[in-house]
């Protein structure tokens, strides 16, 4: 039966290829139905699987961990961004397996959607699970945060492989207690950076100890609910870190971990956490230090993640924000920069974005400094305009242009530093609009 399913799957992949279509999710969806919802159970994977999950940073960390092994001369299989559900992983494995469903590689590095971790890894044996963070994201798809954490926690109860957890996020650190018999739980941690605060700065979850219900006490917050926390009653948060990021200096873009200094390309606290997770994986798998240096110090991103454009003579930085944490991050970077700047915010409410846009009220706009103008666009251009107005920003300086090309033209009509925030389905259309503008009026993409 399994063999038959593999053959059917492979035929679909081939047919799609003949039609010059990318396989995408379709073969996986077909097999999901045919296999009674066990789309990845027919594969035989004998090599170690490393899965990366969490709300923010999955793609970056997956790519970096994959590079650790690739540069070590290993044969790896990695799933592309977006194919991180069971059906997507199935479609991808179909391309690499032989007729018996055997997948040949040294390591499988799989970005895995938070809600799909239990589904996929009840069918495939997992060697290591890396959990980065849990933030509010597309709530109306996943149900409430707690349900999501419970699902993964349920999986961790019987999991005996390696767990690499963000020890500064109570939502992820709690997974370390799910299976008391598991001796392979490791935490990564970061010491406070220059903008860490004593009080919480942005809306967040996880303020109470999941074990005894007491409010968690924080020594410091790095951003959102990420920071050094402890439950005074039951001691939750009191663990020995496996690896700690220290001497974080975002101006010089350096930090140290395990006595080793890294100078990454991206300078944000978010990247420090992601790279510390990468360093933890490198340590666990005994990767050569030179290779780890090379990966962490060279990693940079495109596709609308802090991507730079020249609009005429103005530099514009585009960043994806799927949730308040992502948006607050761009606002922080913007604020920490001197001089006048302008912001374009593109907000869509398509299904993949989550239909509910109320998360924009968890973005802290009151911190705006030297922002001379705001342009808004997207299917919810007015909602984001009203939100920024309500935060106290002068509504006379807000321009609403639901049409993206018009919004980019409006933004480029003055010469100044530009920042652009776009949510999930808005990023690619925004990039295209920026490129159209540059083709027509000049600049650099």
């Amino acid at each position, binding site marked *: 039966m399994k063999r038959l399913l593999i053959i059917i799957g492979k035929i679909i992949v081939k047919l799609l290829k003949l039609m010059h279509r990318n396989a995408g999710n379709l073969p996986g969806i077909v097999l999901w139905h045919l296999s009674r919802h066990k789309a990845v159970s027919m594969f035989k994977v004998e090599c170690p699987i490393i899965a990366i999950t969490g709300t923010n940073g999955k793609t970056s960390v997956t790519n970096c961990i994959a590079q650790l092994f690739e540069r070590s001369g290993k044969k790896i299989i990695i799933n592309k961004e977006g194919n991180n559900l069971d059906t997507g992983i199935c479609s991808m494995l179909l391309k690499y397996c032989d007729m018996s469903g055997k997948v040949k590689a040294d390591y499988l590095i799989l970005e895995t959607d938070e809600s799909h971790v239990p589904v996929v890894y009840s069918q495939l044996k997992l060697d290591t699970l890396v959990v980065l963070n849990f933030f509010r994201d597309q709530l109306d798809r996943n149900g409430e945060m707690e349900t999501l954490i419970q699902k993964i926690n349920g999986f961790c109860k019987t999991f005996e492989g390696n767990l690499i957890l963000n020890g500064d996020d109570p939502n992820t650190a709690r997974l370390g207690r799910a299976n008391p018999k598991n001796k392979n739980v490791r935490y990564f941690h970061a010491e406070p950076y220059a903008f860490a605060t004593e009080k919480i700065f942005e809306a967040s979850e996880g*303020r109470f100890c999941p074990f005894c219900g007491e409010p968690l006490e924080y020594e410091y917050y790095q951003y959102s609910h990420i920071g050094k926390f402890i439950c005074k009653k039951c001691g939750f948060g009191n663990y020995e870190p496996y690896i700690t990021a220290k001497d974080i200096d975002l101006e010089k873009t350096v930090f140290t971990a395990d006595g080793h200094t890294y100078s990454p390309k991206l300078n944000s606290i978010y990247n420090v956490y992601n790279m510390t997770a990468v360093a933890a994986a490198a340590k666990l798998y005994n990767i050569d230090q030179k290779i780890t240096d090379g990966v962490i110090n060279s990693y940079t991103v495109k596709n609308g993640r802090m991507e730079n454009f020249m609009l005429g003579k103005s530099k514009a930085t585009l960043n994806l924000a799927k949730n308040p944490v992502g948006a607050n991050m761009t606002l922080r970077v913007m604020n920490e920069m001197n001089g006048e700047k302008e912001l374009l915010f593109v907000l869509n409410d398509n299904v993949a974005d989550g239909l509910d846009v109320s998360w924009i009220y*968890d973005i802290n706009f009151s911190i705006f400094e030297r922002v001379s103008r705001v342009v808004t666009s997207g299917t919810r251009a007015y*909602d984001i305009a009203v939100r920024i107005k309500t935060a106290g920003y002068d509504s006379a300086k807000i321009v609403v242009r639901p049409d993206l090309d018009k919004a980019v033209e409006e933004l480029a009509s003055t010469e100044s530093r530009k920042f652009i925030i776009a949510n999930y389905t808005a990023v690619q259309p925004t990039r295209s609009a920026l490129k159209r503008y540059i083709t027509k009026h000049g600049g650099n993409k």
Partner: protein
Amino acid sequence: MKTIRILHMYADMLDLYGDSGNMEVMAFRCKKRGIECQIDKYSIDSEMPDFSSYDLIYIGGGADLEQQHISADLLKCKEGIVRAYKNGTFLFLICGGYQLMGKYYRDADGNDIKGLGLFDYFTVAPNSRRKRCIGNIVIETKITGKPVKVVGFENHGGQTQGVNTPFGKVLYGNGNCSKSEAEGYCEKNVIATYLHGPCLSKNPEISDYMIEYCVNRGESEHIIIDALDDTLEKECRQVMLDRLLKK
């Protein structure tokens, strides 16, 4: 003019779906008019406040776990809240806050979380967690004296029954129960609703109704508050009305 005093209860626990934004809207619209607005916070283990001294009490919505956390504490406040309500304090309640003022909330496993019993309605969660009322919603309310279309976003499992005086009539979406005609609960000094969005963000008439109520609470002569420029808010609402109501 007197200072408006608002008590925002459990702000640190019940602020799912941007509900704290409602307080930002209230503060913003008061400030624009030069009305002093003081927003105090109350949470678990805070000192018991004098509820009646507040013109408005606000409670937002939260995840089930948070709602369980606060329900015992809320019951401790019962006497104070009942007295405040009778003394004309305005109650503005969203989602979980709305449910907890009723008789009880029966969760998906059949367990009852006791409500304050201030009002006669009660809420029953469907036994499947998947059956939720989720989506954009448009209702028409007459609380301000004139029909006003209110746009928001609902996301609730609980089905609220036994409401005689709803906040509005459903024009699009679900309302108190799946595909129901009525949404929320209201009295002269109560607005209880499932609408997130946050609810006040693009429905300025509702914020102003409450601000005017608060300004006039305990005053002998009726004060009319200034109109504000709501072009942006109204355009924002119109975009959604055009999308949802015109087929």
